[in-house]
């Protein structure tokens, strides 16, 4: 058996996922070097000591993206590659990739002004969902029921200092059962899946949705694999909803959390990710 590939764990904070990755690596004799993003410097020339493969677990989209570009510039393999994180970590680029690949996804319109956002909302039809292009955990997402509410929300958004809050991603509100579905893809396989049930309209685990294990149908599995391939593949969490017209994928997460999924399904997702990173390092 060949020696294990030396891995780096690029991270911001140590969540259960990162602790599980470190523990799983230790248990398997895989060298996994912690690389805390706050303490790292990135010169243009390659530093002396670098792992062969860097596993990006930075909770910051921008830090992760720039760091991956540097690691790739230095000649390291990355999980996931920068282009995958760039595509999937931005809801607009993600939607473009899904649509281009023919993956069913909710109807979406992007606008750059308040007036444009109002037009987009009218065209999509109320209720609609207004999201910032970057961000997770249901943060700063609004379900808009009518024009009056839309005008109030847009006025509040325009007072926010970040320029990304003035890029308006307007999406149809999908009437679905009180749950959404998450499928965790590693390479060419769905390794675990769950539903997230909540009476609230946002079904993020971070917002207290109740997770239940899910055995996906072959149709749903195929859609998840196509969605993962659409953004470039790797370690990805595909979020889908059951619309009256069938499954729709609304998001593919490129730096996915898996605390709820691993706890709910008992699948050792950390071990699967490490095995995949080893495989990437041997390519």
């Amino acid at each position, binding site marked *: 058996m060949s020696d294990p590939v030396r891995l780096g764990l690029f991270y*911001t904070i140590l969540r259960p996922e990162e602790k599980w990755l470190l523990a799983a690596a230790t248990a398997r004799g895989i060298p996994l070097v912690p690389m805390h993003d706050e303490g790292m410097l990135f010169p243009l020339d390659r530093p002396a000591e670098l792992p062969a493969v860097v596993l990006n677990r930075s909770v910051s989209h*921008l830090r992760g993206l720039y760091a991956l570009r540097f690691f790739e510039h230095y000649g390291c393999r990355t999980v996931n590659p920068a282009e995958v994180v760039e595509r999937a970590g931005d809801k607009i680029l993600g939607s473009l990739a899904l649509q281009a690949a023919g993956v069913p996804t909710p109807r979406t319109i992007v606008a750059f002004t308040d007036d444009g956002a109002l037009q987009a909302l009218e065209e999509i039809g109320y209720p609609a969902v207004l999201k910032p292009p*970057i961000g*997770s955990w249901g943060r700063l997402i609004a379900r808009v029921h009518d024009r009056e509410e839309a005008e109030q929300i847009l006025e509040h958004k325009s007072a926010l200092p970040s320029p990304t809050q003035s890029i308006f991603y307007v999406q149809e509100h999908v009437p679905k059962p009180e749950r959404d579905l998450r499928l965790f893809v590693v390479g060419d396989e769905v390794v675990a899946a769950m539903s997230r049930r909540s009476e609230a309209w946002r079904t993020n685990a971070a917002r207290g949705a109740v997770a239940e294990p899910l055995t996906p149908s072959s149709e749903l599995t195929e859609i998840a694999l196509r969605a993962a391939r659409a953004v470039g593949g790797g370690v990805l969490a595909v979020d889908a909803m059951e619309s009256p017209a069938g499954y729709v994928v609304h998001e593919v997460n490129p730096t996915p959390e898996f605390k709820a999924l691993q706890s709910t399904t008992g699948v050792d997702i950390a071990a699967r990710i490490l095995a995949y990173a080893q495989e990437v390092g041997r390519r």
Partner: protein
Amino acid sequence: MTNCPECDAEVSCGAMIAGEIFPCRDCGTELEVIATTPIAIERAPKEAEDWGE
């Protein structure tokens, strides 16, 4: 051993590594280990706009 930046209580980080988040036992402030040699802690970072999955 170091001190909580909020209440100055003595804080022990044991075998923690940089990036670990833990509450101060005295005041409950969320703290982050910034470095381990020597040990350095700060108030835990607030969730930023680009944080997520």
